[in-house]
């Protein structure tokens, strides 16, 4: 039997096994919650995983539309990028698909005639994994960007003092508009 036929026949069990592997990267108590709590708003993480993993698989074995794949990856990785995983754990779950698929191939079918297709499948998984790396990095960079924005946008606790530059800049804008050149005095509380 060709690999594609096997995959088509076993699609649901592959997706389920893959999803379970994803859940199993959490503590068993958490995994139980992620898997079983149905309401999308009570269980946003489990629901996002469930919603993304099927279409992701279909896209890999189907058209391999990169944008669609990226979207599915984003749904999963955006969450895992802020959880307690090191990078390889966060995206390792995508590489695992190779193993998942091998598990559903009956051993009698496993032979040279399937290798070429398997090779192509693996290559697609690799491409997905590389995309996952990009998405992961984009999420992590976003976090740092947000951290930076957060610090820039408001007066910050810099070295034991508040930096009031934000309001000062704002005030300066108005005074310049009115043509006032008045200097600002340092209004921060003086240390000792």
């Amino acid at each position, binding site marked *: 039997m060709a690999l594609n036929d096997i995959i088509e026949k076993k699609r649901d069990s592959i997706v389920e096994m893959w999803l379970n*592997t994803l859940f*199993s*990267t*959490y*503590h*068993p*108590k*958490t995994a139980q*919650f*992620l898997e079983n*709590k149905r*309401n*999308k*708003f*009570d*269980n*946003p*993480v489990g629901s*996002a995983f469930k919603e993304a993993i099927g279409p992701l698989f279909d896209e890999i074995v189907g058209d391999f539309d990169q944008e669609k794949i990226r979207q599915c990856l984003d749904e999963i990785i*955006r*969450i895992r990028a*802020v*959880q*307690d995983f090191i990078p390889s*754990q966060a995206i*390792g*779950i995508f*590489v*695992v698909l*190779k*193993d998942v698929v*091998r598990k559903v191939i009956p051993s009698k079918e496993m032979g040279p005639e399937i290798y070429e297709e398997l090779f192509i499948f693996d290559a697609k998984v690799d491409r997905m994994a590389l995309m996952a790396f990009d998405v992961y990095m984009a999420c992590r960079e*976003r*976090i740092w960007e*947000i*951290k930076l*924005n*957060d*610090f820039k*946008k*408001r*007066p*910050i*606790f810099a070295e*034991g003092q*508040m930096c*009031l530059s*934000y*309001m000062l800049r*704002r*005030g300066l804008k*108005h005074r310049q*508009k009115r043509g006032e050149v008045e200097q600002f005095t340092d*209004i*921060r*509380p003086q240390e000792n």
Partner: protein
Amino acid sequence: MAKELTPQETLRIDLRPPKQDWMDIPVNIKEGIYCYPAKPEKIECVDMPNAHKWSPVEEDWGLPENWKEIFLEGFRERLDKHRTFKIFMDICVRCGACADKCHFFIGSGDPKNMPVVRAELLRSVYRGEFTKAGQILGRLAGARKLTMPVLKEIWYYLFQCTECRRCSLFCPYGIDTAEITILGRELINLFGLNINWIQEPVCNCYNTGNHLGLLPHTFKQNIEFLCDDIEEFVGIKIEPTFNRKGAEILFVTPSGDVFAEPGIYTLMGYLMLFEHIGLDYTWSTYACEGGNFGFFTSLEMAQRLNAKIYHEAERLGVKWILGGECGHMWRVIHQYMNTFQKPVDSLEEPISPITGTKFENAKSLKMVHISEFTADLIKHGKLKLDPSRNDHLKVTYHDSCNPSRGMGMLEEPRYVIKNVCNHFYEMPENTIREETFCCGSGSGLNAGENMELRMRGGLPRANAVKHVHNKYGVNTLACVCAIDRAVLPASMEYWVPGVDVAGVSELVANALIMEGENERSVNLRGEEIPGRAPKEEEAQEDV
């Protein structure tokens, strides 16, 4: 030669974490999750003990030799003093009803963030150190001794709880894990383990009256800058008064609204609203902070910092106090102020000078929430409003934990929003009102260094916003809390790009038809309002 892996082995990547019970999983303190320790001078400034330099990721936390005694003694004291604490330590049946209700558990997947486990962190010590059963049966009774790793674990998870009380809503016994966190934080403050994001505002607030340490003239200057902005964007000049004796009303709001975006737009909203109705009120540069980070430190500190509001009301001789949009400020006022402070005889039962409405709910506190006040104005037709100016906004409302769960204010902000905006959409019902999800950064966890934690905690709220964003095109998340305004923008940037955060009073002011106003082609942020570009410019463009 290296052992060669078979292809199968190579592929079998094991991503499973340890399966043990939580008590056997050692704590792993991570950058991005914890907040930086309090600076010694900020601890000394309010006479708290053991001010010292330390780091959560280092082995030695610089504790006094007898730290265990201090902790256990403090524990015992609080068990005696707070009946609830004692009961919460005793009666949990570990039914698990609260387990999956915490935004930090939902977002992180870390079982120690299940409220029941968070409480067990302390409860296990309670059993191991104070109960017979625990001392005899030990682990079998879920008991353990207080050790340094245990203390570190307690510390780490005390600062992964926003004291939001969502869990308590689902507990059949009403166990309030927030209260356990509050008292737990008191305990670690007995030897100088506060975080700076809480301690510095506490110290500043104590010294100058507000979190940022703004001195009176700066506080005043900042508000005047915002009046300049109003003049530019709305075309009217507002001249608020400060520390004016004899004003009818004292207005107190979190200082976050005085300096940070987008809170400043909410403050501009207050200024315009009061101008619109000609309210006889004053700002105070002394009671210039509604927020109270003392509440995240100890109840005693909360009381100390809260005292200034009544003091100032008395000094200025006002009749009653109006409070701005804030979350924990209202929890403290609504649930503690009456017992924290002596009643002030000079204050009167609040009556709106515009509508004559008696705020009977504020009979003993003498303090009214701005949303109650505004809703009453609208109900009596006292505001001239043009909600179409907000037509480009599709608005949803985030119930902040404290106003909703803490004081039961659910309808007023919604009523106000619906009167000033034409497009309002609710998020799913298990994510709003009493069941609202926390912003993920409350109780002093709105620092920058713990952004990963904030993102985890903010996920369930953001997920519900994402739903209405996708379904109805919601682009504005309204709220009545200064911490929300400070932290939800970051959460939206990560989880739901395209959604802005606005205070309810900002939306009100954008719809207010002010006497003598300009064509109002820009909003309070100075952004052009779609479809309201000035006529001349349009004409020029046409040429």
